[in-house]
């Protein structure tokens, strides 16, 4: 126990925790995206339903689900603690600060993008996950997806959220590698590029589904 507190109490340890949970959440995003892209079979959600069915029936997935929730919570609490610490590190701010000259907007606003993602997540879970998982809803998940994306307001909110998620990932993914020490001068540009490509795949992949429904490419 003491060695665990020793690693995680200093700031670098807490950031390693951010990085590890963040990367785990990235893996989850890939898995989620895979599920969503099954809709492109355009088979009235047959493959998609099959997939959700398997997910809810597999014990391992059920266990991983708890790890996933744990990761979300640790990622958020740790972020909050680090942010409070960071605010304390500069009690008096500058009258003039030209941050845009030396860093990107999205790298400086991970807390803001993260909070928006959290808000989206709550709405998103309420729409799809909670009714099925906890409220005994046994209806078709596909029907609910179709229903939800019929509402342009929900679709717009969804697309906006995955764009914000993309910005968060664009900084977060490469930053995680940096924090874990898995970067150096020659790998850094490659890791950055991979992070951006990953963020693009996630954003475009998720956002394409409501767009496809809107233009009735999927039905």
């Amino acid at each position: 126990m003491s060695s665990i507190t020793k690693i995680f109490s200093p700031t670098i340890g807490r950031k390693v925790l951010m990085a590890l949970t963040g990367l785990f959440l990235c893996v989850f995003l890939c898995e989620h995206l895979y599920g969503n892209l099954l809709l492109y079979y355009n088979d009235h959600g047959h493959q998609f339903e099959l997939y959700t069915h398997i997910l809810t029936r597999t014990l391992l997935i059920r266990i991983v689900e708890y790890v996933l929730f744990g990761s979300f919570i640790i990622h958020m609490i740790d972020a909050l603690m680090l942010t409070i610490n960071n605010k304390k590190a500069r009690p008096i701010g500058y009258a003039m600060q030209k941050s845009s000259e030396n860093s990107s907007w999205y790298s400086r606003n991970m807390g803001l993008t993260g909070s928006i993602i959290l808000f989206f997540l709550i709405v998103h879970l309420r729409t799809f996950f909670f009714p099925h998982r906890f409220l005994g809803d046994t209806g078709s998940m596909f029907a609910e997806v179709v229903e939800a994306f019929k509402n342009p307001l929900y679709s717009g909110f969804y697309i906006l959220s995955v764009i914000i998620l993309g910005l968060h990932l664009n900084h977060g993914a490469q930053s995680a590698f940096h924090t874990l020490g898995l970067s150096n001068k020659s790998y850094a540009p490659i890791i950055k590029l991979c992070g951006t490509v990953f963020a693009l795949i996630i954003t475009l992949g998720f956002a394409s589904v409501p767009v496809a429904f809107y233009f009735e490419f999927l039905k």
Partner: protein
Amino acid sequence: MSDTINLTLKIWRQKDASSPGKFETFKLDGVSTHMSFLEMMDVLNEKLIKENKEPIAFDHDCREGICGMCSMYINGRAHGPLKGTTTCQLHMRHFHDGQTITIEPWRAKGFPVIKDLVVDRNAFEIIMQAGGFVSVNTGSPADANAILIPNPIAEEAMDGAACIGCGACVATCKNASAMLFVSAKVSQLALLPQGQVERAERVMNMVKAMDEAGFGNCTNTGACEAECPKEVSVSHIARLNREYLMANLKNR
């Protein structure tokens, strides 16, 4: 093109560490564009002394960009608008006639203001004392080149050693994190054969001292590298993280 410019200077004034400070505005006319920023400050101070006013306190020493003593947050940027330049090496030709220049001290809990633009950077010394050294036996000087070091490694260590400890990284970081400074100091010794004996202990102790000094946590925005007058790379921070994790694995 005229060789002199007229400026309005908005400068942070603070009597001592415990007094609250405020901005004071000064007009300075006929500033030669060939002057360095610190020379411009000297001219202002001479004017203030002639007017029987308290001159503005600011840090400086070598005035040739190597000691790391000068600081100043100029118009929202550490060491002013130029890349890879200390305040003492910044010249007034980079400003234009009629411009208002806002000058603030470094802002960080780890760097409390002592007076006007002077901050206490002792925290960096404490971090260095915690491990930024190699222990050697004294005696007759060792032969040069007795220990072979491959050139790329020597170069990389030199890049870290280029850090002059001015604190611009802390000043510019949105989290007031000292990671670039600490990583440069850890890197230069971790890379070299002489630094191996204390390698794990060093990184643990220096990170501990850094945390205790009240600096924030790095969020990898890269602002430090962009504003560092010696352009120390954030890849040293990745190495610091790696060293720290490896030290934890080895030691415990």
